[in-house]
């Protein structure tokens, strides 16, 4: 897989990849709380499914009673029972 120039830069200077590129950072606390940083907007939002646009593609989160607890330009916090999430191109 050819490396992006930003990844090379991060490797050379030993910097966190997400700091130099727009890659999403996903923090999952158990099954109940997910924080997605570096996202590019909400594509779909319902009780059972949330789709977020990111630099690496769409993140599809599925679960029960999903709720966007907080959002700003940098991150979005999702609460509820998260059953699964995946990247879609």
């Amino acid at each position, binding site marked *: 897989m050819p490396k992006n120039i930003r990844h090379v830069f991060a490797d050379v200077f030993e910097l966190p990849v997400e700091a130099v590129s727009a890659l999403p950072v996903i923090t999952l606390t158990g099954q109940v709380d997910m924080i997605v940083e570096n996202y590019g907007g909400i594509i779909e*939002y319902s009780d059972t499914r949330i789709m977020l646009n990111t630099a690496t593609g769409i993140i599809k989160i599925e679960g029960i009673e999903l709720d966007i607890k907080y959002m700003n330009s940098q991150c979005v916090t999702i609460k509820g029972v998260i059953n699964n999430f995946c990247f879609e191109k």
Partner: protein
Amino acid sequence: MAIWNYFRGYVIIKASGLSAGKFINMSAFYGVNIWDIENDGKYYFIKADIRDKDELKEISRKSGCRTEIVAYKGLPCVLKQMRRKSAYVFGAFAFVAAIYALSGFVWTVSVEGNYRVSTNDIKNFCRQKGIYPGNLKSKINTELISNGIIAEFEDVGWAAVNIKGTKATISISETIPKIEIIDNSLYCDIISETDGIIESITVINGTPLVRANDVVKKGDVIVSGVLDIKDGEEIKGQKYVKAEAYIRAVTVHNVFFQVDMTENEKKYTGKKSKGIEIYAFEKKIDFSTPFGYDKFDKTEGYSFGLNIGEYNIPFGFKIYNINEYTINQKKLSQQEAEKKAADFLSAYKEEHFGMEDYVLSEDIKSNIKDNKLEYKVTITVSQTIGETKTR
């Protein structure tokens, strides 16, 4: 975060239409903090900072989304509403002020650590010195009162007055009980307190002047406090002591009393009513005296009064139950009169005879005269006699 949002104030926005998602994304993109985004299938409900309200309107216009502010929430909104309802604000301040003012008083007084000294005695003393429900805490000098308690009560060795909140606690520690010291240097005789025949006499100290079966009159010396010091038959000197003895004698008591054969009997007519009495401080307004009742009984049925701790607020009212009655004269039968007489006799015996005394015989003569039952009773009793008399 939630509590901070509450203090800063926030709005709930209802977003609808196809571009509602665009509105949310644009809000985030423009740096507007939004939270608790809910989707009920038809509308999106979004919470946002109250200060971003205008910016959200602009975003709404740009995104083409229909938005509506459905609620203003948080402390600034509550305060704004309060400004319109000045009575509430005044009430809240008055409540706080009342609580503050009332906390400056003592409302309950308790005493702990006392066994021999009565709680009421201590409370009464403290009341005189200023510790009582309803008095200002600032007026109470706890050190002075603690020292006062120690000085006033002999049995108290240590005392402390603590005021915590509105409660004054008087803690005391009692001294070891004093042993009663009998002064044997005071010499005295034992004299008879009644007429009788000596049954037995046991002398612990002193010179007996009577023997068993001797007749004694009231005031006669039974045991003398003078001891003769003898050398054979010759009296060499005298020693004065405190006479002590256990003496039993047979005594006779004549009792005469009359029982009236007619008795006043209370009979309720069945006429009832209720009355109220209102009181404020020392004043009483009595509405409980009924009209048209000749004789009546007044019993307290319900009373209402408020108190703070042990302090009774001097306002309230009492409701009385009033029952009318008439007095009927009832003639007692001989049996009923004799029963009353027997009750009177047993009350007499309880009053005059002790636990160690027992009745030897009882001679009762009764007759009815002038509608009265006359009782003449002669009671023969074996009882302890003798009282000390100092010389």
